[in-house]
């Protein structure tokens, strides 16, 4: 545990990543690497339980972060969200041996959002703060189920089986946890 690191404000991270994208800023990337690499590795380890594989998948993920930094848009969300989606995609590519099917923002058939894209960088940062507080306030069993649904390759019924609790309970706890987090995200 490195508690001091835990407190790194997310908007600093955002500035660092933008600098990596614009200037191939190695120093900025090192700060990002030292903060996120252990987290990505832990995320991968939860899924594979194989230390070497987790290290490899972490390196792969951080390499994508380095190469695609110019595509990061602070208005779309935080650095942790962006890196999470990259780590997830690396994992899908490796374990499922398929590219993850994804929509394409530039496809002429893509239906654009109704709202005009404003500068949402600050909003995204505030959202992340509210989310962090809401998450800290969740009952332990709800947080646990939430982590399992994000980190383990299992359906709700597999989770229910693993914990020997009824499927209905799993579903309702996840639903409750989501409702609380979503409410926190929708506060204005």
């Amino acid at each position, binding site marked *: *545990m*490195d508690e001091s690191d835990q407190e790194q404000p997310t908007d600093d991270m955002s500035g660092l990543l933008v600098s990596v994208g614009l200037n*191939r800023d*190695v120093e900025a*990337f090192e700060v990002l*690497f*030292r*903060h*996120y*690499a*252990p*987290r990505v590795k*832990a995320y991968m380890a939860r899924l594979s339980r194989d230390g070497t594989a987790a*290290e490899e998948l*972490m*390196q792969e993920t951080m*390499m994508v972060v*380095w190469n695609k930094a*110019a*595509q990061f848009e602070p208005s*779309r*969300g*935080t650095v*942790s*969200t962006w*890196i*999470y*989606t990259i*780590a997830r995609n690396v994992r*899908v590519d490796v374990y*499922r041996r*398929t590219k*993850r*099917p994804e*929509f*394409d*923002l*530039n*496809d*002429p*058939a*893509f*239906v*654009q*959002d*109704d709202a005009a894209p404003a500068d949402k960088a600050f909003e995204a940062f505030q959202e*992340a703060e509210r*989310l962090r507080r809401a*998450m800290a306030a969740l009952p332990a069993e709800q947080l646990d189920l*939430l982590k399992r*649904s*994000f980190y383990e*390759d*299992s*359906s709700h019924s597999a989770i229910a089986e693993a914990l020997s609790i009824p499927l209905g309970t799993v*579903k309702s706890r*996840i*639903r409750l946890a*989501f409702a609380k987090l979503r409410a926190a*995200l929708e506060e204005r």
Partner: protein
Amino acid sequence: MSINHHISDELLLRYASGELAEGWSLAVATHLALCPSCRQRLSKMETIGGALLENISTGAASDDAWARMRRRMDKADVRVSQPMEDHRQAGRAEPILPEPLRSYLGGDIDSLKWRSLGMGAYQIPIRLADTSTIARLLRIPAGKPVPEHGHAGQELTLVLAGSFRDGSDVFARGDLEEADASLTHQPLASEGEDCICLAVTDAPLKFKSWLVRLIQPVLGI
């Protein structure tokens, strides 16, 4: 266009967390291309995934890990990717099939080679790398029932053109129907226009025994 039938929370969460098999993901991602409101829900789930990543308790990164990273960066520094290009071309008609589905089929609706299913219905099987699901594009003539409808497992149907009616529900472009074995349904293409939809189902169970395999088609399992 207003979509009335969306992706359920469980399905969307499994897509957000990268657990959903390719076939289901294809239907989910294609619905997302047409549905800003589900994209907003997805982005909230991804924000939650990001916050969970931020909160993971870990040790510090090792200097060794950083040194390995540096070596990779030095080697790879040539292929830096740029912000994505805009492929939209002014003045061209919007395709009926959105991405990622269009690429899976190799083109838009007018370039497809349909295979007859009988009764005026057509299909195109979609190649997936994952074998746990089966995906195909169906074209059902206006006013006719959706064929081959005894399914045992999960089924996702995404409407791309025309519409179908299932009981009192109408599914039109962008609508996604989630059905499982417990649901008895009899979808019927609406009058006026052929209904084109993406249908994803669990792959039929593959039995090892040659005997069972031999009678499988007879039993219809």
